[in-house]
Structure formats: C-alpha cells, structure tokens
C-alpha cells in the first residue's frame, strides 16, 4: 500500500511522468479530470452551504494535512481566504533530498479548485511563491 503519507511525492512523480511522456498539456488534462471527479466533496459542500462550504471543506482537509495556515470567511463581504504560510505538500517536496518538485506543482491547486469555484459563479484567485511554499487562495462572490 502506498501510504497516504507517501502520496504527495507519488502525485508529484505523476505530474513529472505525464509531462515527460506526453507533454505539459497532459498534466493539465489530468488536473481537470481530478477536479471533475475526485473533488465532488468540495462541489457538494459549496452547493449546500455556498461560500461557507469552502470553509467547511478546507477546515477538515488542511488540519488532516497538518498545514500551517490562516483561514477566514466573511459571508457579509463574500470573501473566503486561505493564507498558506507553509504548504504541507510542496513543503514536503522541498524538504526531500531525493524528490525534485514538478516545476508547475503549485498550478495544480489553481486548475483543481478554480473550475469548481467558477462553476458556482464565484471568483477565484491564487497567488503563490513556490520557493517558500507560500500562497494566498481567495474565493469571492461576484458582488464583492
């Protein structure tokens, strides 16, 4: 069994493998597939709770991933924001002596989550500094 604690390097190697064999576009196609299939729990959470569904979804996943983050929801302003001080996934890859992070690793969050947010008419922004495993993810209602 590939432990869930070993998944991130295996995931990183899948991006590198696809890119090497079939080019960058094949990696993006895989991210879109994962967004449309695997992330149904995020989709259901937003469908049921609106912007608050983002807070509910990431409250669980980021704690299970032992992330160093700060997360805010302001339903009046229509803003959900995660400030990721140290991404638990990229952070692990950067610390590894034997794994080379996929150059566009951070883009997978953009592709996975943007599709879902925008399908609900929400605005999505992701800015990141891959060298520091730092990012800010913001999802807004359009009247923000």
């Amino acid at each position: 069994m590939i432990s869930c604690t070993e998944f991130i390097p295996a995931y990183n190697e899948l991006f590198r493998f696809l890119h090497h064999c079939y080019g960058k576009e094949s990696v993006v196609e895989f991210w879109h597939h994962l967004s449309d299939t695997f992330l149904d729990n995020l989709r259901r959470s937003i469908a049921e709770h609106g912007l608050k569904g983002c807070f509910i979804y990431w409250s669980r996943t980021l704690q299970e991933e032992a992330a160093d983050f700060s997360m805010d929801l302001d339903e009046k302003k229509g803003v959900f924001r995660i400030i990721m001080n140290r991404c638990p996934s990229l952070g692990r890859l950067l610390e590894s002596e034997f794994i080379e992070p996929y150059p566009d690793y951070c883009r997978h969050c953009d592709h996975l989550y943007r599709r879902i947010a925008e399908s609900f008419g929400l605005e999505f922004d992701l800015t990141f500094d891959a060298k520091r495993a730092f990012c800010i993810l913001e999802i807004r209602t359009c009247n923000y």
Partner: protein
Amino acid sequence: MKEVTQHLDGKGGEHLYLHKDFHGALCYAIKYLDETYGYEITHAYLRHVGETVYKPLIFEIKRRGLKALEDHLRRVFTLEGGEFELYWKEDHLQLEVKRCPAIEHLKRNNLYYTDRFCTSTIVVNETICRQSGCQAHCDVVPGSGRCVQTFRRMT
C-alpha cells in the same frame, strides 16, 4: 441567511499528518491512466514511483536487509490503523492484511474504488524488491481489503 465571520489557524505540528482522502486521489489517478493511456502506462508510472519515492527504503533494504522493510510496513499499517499480522516464516517476511485501511476508507466514505487499486501495491512492492535484491509476491482477494504479501531475499 445569518451572515457570519469565521477564522481558523493551523500550526502544522498540532495535527497528525494523515489525510486518507489521498487514497482516493491515487485511485482516480490509476483509473485515469488505465482509461486514457492503458494498463502498461499505469504500470510504468507505478514502477517509476517505486524507484523514486521509495529510494530511501530501497537503500535501507540493501543496507539492513528485509528488517528495514518489516519496520517500514509495521510503521505504515500502524499509522493508518490497518488490521494486520507481520511475521517471519522460515526465510521470508509475510504481511497478512486483514483489513486494508486504504480500501476501508474509500468504501466507508463512498469514494471511488476499483479492484485495480491493489495494482499499486503489487507493482510498487515488486519494484522496491527488484531494486534491492529481493522478491515480492502478493495474493489479493479483490475488493475484500485482504491480501497476503510475501518478501524474500534472492539467493
């Protein structure tokens, strides 16, 4: 609707790193590779994982023998809360998985599951062992969450 403001901080080390939904992501990845590129490409990817992700384990098995693999398997299955027996039988190491924590998580949470999921165990085990001068064999009862994995040094 009642409008609310919520805030949550995470400090990394406060929680155990154990996000079992990642088993679901791996399951989808296997399904995607199978359906888009075919079984042989899925196997090539899993061999690549064996050679890269488990490089330190391969190094340790070369250095300490199958005791290093025993330590690895015990740590992983204990951490994930699997039901298993791990023991030495004559010259080989045997892992009897009675309740696979990955398959249990997928089924309990209605995440996608395919019998092809266990291919990841079979191919990765074979790759790690081939790279470290050992042999691996796995008998799986598909979908049951049970398997018997056997490891021995090549003579």
